[in-house]
C-alpha cells in the first residue's frame, strides 16, 4: 500500500496535478481576447508586462497593496496560511528524503522545528480564516459548502501530517492518511477553485496589464495598488 501510494500513485498524482495546472495556464492565455477584455496585449507588451509585474508583486507583499495595509489582522492570517501551506510541503525534510530516493535529488530542507512551526501556523491560520467566514456577515453571505470543502481538503494533509509527526495513535495509519489526503489535495488543484495557485498569477497579471496598458500605464502613471 505504502509503496503504491508513494510510487506509481504519487507520480500519477504529480502528472495530473502539475500537468492539469499547466493546461489551465495555457487555456487561460488562449482565452484572452483583446476585444472582449479590451486590452491590447500584443501591441503594448512592454507596458503590459510592467503592469502585470507591478500587480503581482504588490499582492505578494503583505504591505504592497492598500487592502493589505488597512487590514493587518486579515493580512496576517492570509499570509501565515499561504506561507505555511506552500513552503512546508516543498521543503519538508521527509518529503525531500522521498524525492532523493525516487529521483536522486532533493531541495534544501527545513529544520524540523521550523517545519513544525510553519505547519501549525498554516493549520491555525486556516481555522481562523474559517471562523471568520462564520463570524462576519459580509463573508458569511459569500460562503458556500464548497468553500468549507476546499479548506478541509487543504488542511487535511497538514493535520494528518502533524498527528503522524507526533506519533499520536497508529503511526502507519496516520502516515497513510497523510499521503492519501496529500494526494487528494494535489489532485484537486487543477479541477477546483484551488487552481488559483496558478490562476491567481494569471488573473493578477491580466488586470495588471489592463492598468499598465489602457488604464493609465501608458500615461506614465503607475497604479498604487
Amino acid at each position: 500500500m505504502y509503496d503504491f501510494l508513494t510510487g506509481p500513485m504519487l507520480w500519477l498524482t504529480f502528472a495530473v496535478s502539475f500537468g492539469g495546472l499547466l493546461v489551465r495556464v495555457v487555456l487561460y492565455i488562449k482565452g484572452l481576447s483583446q476585444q472582449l477584455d479590451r486590452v491590447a496585449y500584443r501591441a503594448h507588451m512592454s507596458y503590459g508586462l510592467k503592469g502585470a509585474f507591478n500587480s503581482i508583486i504588490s499582492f505578494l507583499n503583505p504591505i504592497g497593496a492598500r487592502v493589505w495595509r488597512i487590514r493587518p489582522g486579515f493580512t496576517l492570517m492570509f499570509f501565515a496560511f499561504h506561507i505555511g501551506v506552500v513552503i512546508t510541503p516543498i521543503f519538508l525534510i521527509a518529503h525531500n528524503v522521498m524525492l532523493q530516493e525516487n529521483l536522486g535529488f532533493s531541495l534544501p530542507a527545513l529544520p524540523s522545528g521550523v517545519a513544525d512551526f510553519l505547519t501549525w501556523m498554516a493549520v491555525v491560520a486556516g481555522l481562523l480564516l474559517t471562523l471568520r467566514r462564520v463570524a462576519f456577515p459580509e463573508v458569511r453571505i459569500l460562503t458556500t459548502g464548497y468553500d468549507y470543502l476546499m479548506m478541509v481538503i487543504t488542511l487535511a494533509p497538514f493535520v494528518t501530517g502533524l498527528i503522524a509527526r507526533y506519533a499520536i495513535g497508529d503511526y502507519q495509519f496516520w502516515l497513510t492518511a497523510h499521503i492519501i489526503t496529500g494526494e487528494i489535495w494535489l489532485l484537486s488543484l487543477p479541477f477546483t477553485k484551488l487552481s488559483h495557485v496558478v490562476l491567481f498569477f494569471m488573473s493578477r497579471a491580466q488586470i495588471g496589464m489592463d492598468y499598465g496598458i489602457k488604464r493609465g500605464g501608458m500615461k506614465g502613471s503607475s497604479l498604487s495598488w
Partner: protein
Amino acid sequence: MPEGILCNKTPIKTDEQLKLTLSDSRGTKYYAEMLELEVDSDALWALVQKTLKSRTKTWLEICAHCGLCAESCFLYQVNGRTPKQVPSYKIQSTLGQIVKKKGKVTNEFMRHCMDVAWSQCTCCNRCGMYCPHGIDMGVMFSYLRGLLYSQGFVPWELKIGSGMHRVYRAQMDVTTEDWVETCEWMAEETEEEWPGLEIPVDKQDADIMYTCNAREPKHYPEDVAEAAILFHVAGENWTVPSEGWEQTSLSMFAGDWECCKDNVQNVYDAIERLNPKRAIGTECGHAHRATVIEGPYWTGRPDGLPPRPYIHYVEWLAEALRTGKLKIDPAKRIKEPVTLQDSCNYVRNQGLKDITREIISYIVEPGFFVEMSPNKEHNYCCGGGGGFNGIGMYREQRNVALRKKMDQILDTGCKLVIAPCHNCWDAIRDLEEEYEIGIRWSFLKPLVIGMLDVPEHMLPKDEE
C-alpha cells in the same frame, strides 16, 4: 406576451419608436410590459458561451469568497453594510447564476438582475483594486448589463438613451444642424466680448479637433462658448466636426455594445476626415472613457488607441497653463478652501490623477487646496455614475449613494468642489439639492476664464 411594444429585445432604431417610448411617461407602460417579457434562454446562453472567456470565467470561478471587496464598495458602506451589497455577492447572485443555470432563468430573475446591475453598481471599478485576485466588478457588471440589454431588461431611460445614440448619434436629440447652429450662435454671442473669436466647423488639418458632451449644446451652450474662449486666448488652431462631435455614450451604460461601436466610429471618422493633429474632449469622464479608453476596442483597432492622440480636457488645460499659453492672474487665484472630485472614468480608468493636481497648483493659492480622503485612484464614485444619475426608478437608491461623496466633501470643510466631469458635476449638484450642505461646484472652464490674465490686444477695443 413574449415581447412588448415598448419593452422588447430590439434596440430603438427609429425616431418613431424613440418618440413612442419617450411618450410613455416614467416608463409606466414599459415596465408593465417588462413583467411579461420572455427570456430567450438559448440566445442568452449562446451569448454567454461566445463572450465569457478567460477573464470573466476565471473570476467567477476563483473568487475566494473572502469578502475583502466589501468595504471597498461605497454602496456597501452607505447602505448600512448590508451583506447584499458585497460586490462579490452582487455578481455571484446575478451573473454567477445565469452562468450556473446555463441561461435558464426566469423573467423575475432577470428583473432582479436589472435592479442589481443598475442600482447596486456604478461600474466605478474601485473594488477591483482591493481584490487579491484582481476581480473587477465594474468590468463584470458592464458585461452583465450587456447580457441584460440583449434580452430587453434595461431601465427605460437607458433604453431611450441608447436609442438616442442610435437615431441621433447623440445622447439627446441634437441633430447636426442643431449642433452647427449652436456653434454659430455661441460664436456670435461670445465675439462681442472676445473680438476675433471663432468656432470653426469642419476645418481641415487643424491642430485640435474638439468634441463634447451633447448635454452642452442642448442645455448649457455656454460651455461650448467657454471652450472657445479658452482655445481663443491660448491661440489654438482648432475646429469642431459637424458630424462626430458627440463623444458620450449612454449605450455604454446601457450595455448596447453595437451602438457603442457605431458612435465611436462616427467620431473616429470625423478625425480621419478632418485630419487634425490631435483631438481633445470636454470635461467629461464617461465621454472620455467611451471615445478614448474603450472606444478603440469597440471599433476593433488593434493598437487600442484612437486614430490620433486624443486627450481629456484636463490634459490640454494643464499643458496650456504649463506652457504659458494661458496665464493666470495671481491676484485672481482661488483663495478659499477648495477640493477636487477625481472622476473614476479617467482616474481609475486612465491614470489622470496628477495632471488635475498640476492644474490646481496654477489656479489655487497655495495652502487652499484640500484633498478628499481617500483620493486619486482610491477615490470613491460621486454616487451617480454608470447611469445611476439618470434612472428615475432608482432615484431613492441614488440619493443614498450620494452620501459617501457628501461625507467626503464635508470632511474637507470646503464649500467649493471642482468637478471636471459632467456626471460627477451632476451628482454633486443633486447632492446639494438633496442634502443642502451649502456647497458650490464648478467645471474648470468657468473658473479658469474668471482668473485669466488676458493679453491687451484680445480685449474689446471700446473698453479702453
